């Protein structure tokens, strides 16, 4: 096999062969890859103030990679309007690529599980209101995380049974 490994044999952080994420249309999300925290915070703050998005959280997905989730509920059109505005002004290539993919899917996705050597995204910064879409996002994230934990437990039990 060239350039690939069987997912099961590869010891990724959560032991899952696939990636789990959350998709929806009404939450404004941004994916900043290879961007320092200061820049991410600047764009999150500027976007929140310009579009009156109430509040935001920043999740660190890996070294110099961050996700931003905003608190205000918006329509899909408005959501893409906001992300396109950030892409145009920030001239961020990775974000623009992510934005195009979300347009194709008609739903924006952010990763919840670990991916290869990258760990699960964790919250590193909170600002403003948190009881709207952020609360919903975090509640759903909790469900996904519990599913991941159950799968991991099941896998551990299976490996123990094979050993014995």
């Amino acid at each position: 096999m060239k350039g690939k490994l069987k997912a099961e044999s590869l010891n990724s952080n959560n032991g899952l062969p696939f990636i789990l994420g959350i998709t929806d249309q009404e939450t404004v999300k941004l994916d900043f890859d290879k961007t320092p925290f200061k820049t991410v915070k600047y764009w999150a703050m500027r976007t929140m103030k310009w579009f009156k998005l109430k509040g935001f959280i920043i999740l660190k997905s890996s070294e110099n990679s961050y996700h931003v989730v905003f608190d205000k509920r918006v329509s899909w059109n408005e959501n893409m309007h906001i992300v396109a505005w950030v892409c145009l002004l920030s001239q961020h290539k990775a974000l623009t690529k992510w934005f195009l993919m979300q347009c194709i899917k008609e739903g924006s996705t952010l990763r919840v599980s670990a991916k290869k050597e990258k760990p699960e995204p964790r919250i590193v910064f909170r600002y403003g209101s948190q009881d709207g879409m952020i609360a919903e996002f975090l509640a759903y994230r909790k469900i996904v995380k519990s599913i991941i934990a159950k799968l991991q437990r099941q896998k551990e039990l299976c490996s123990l049974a094979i050993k014995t």
Partner: protein
Amino acid sequence: MVKKIAVYGSYEAKVRVKQRYWKMRKDGIKQRYWRKTKRTKTIEQSGRYEFYGKGRELYKATIKAHQYMPRGYVHVSAKQFLENPEKYGLEGEWIEREIES
């Protein structure tokens, strides 16, 4: 709109090989047809499930997704997927490869 769980990645699956053949029609035109042979080939591609539904169903669907690889982009309720997984996926194995969200 409801929130959905995205299950995505690259996978390997075995699919039936299609064979091309020609048939002379009554009006004299040669028509091309395809038929599925018994031979199989291993394909490697990426796919994605978008599951929505209740927590327990989502969990069961995620377990099922270990076995059944999505046929491209599959947007389905977890309940429907559990009732008929063959309709939405093919049997195969997930592989680890760089994949965008």
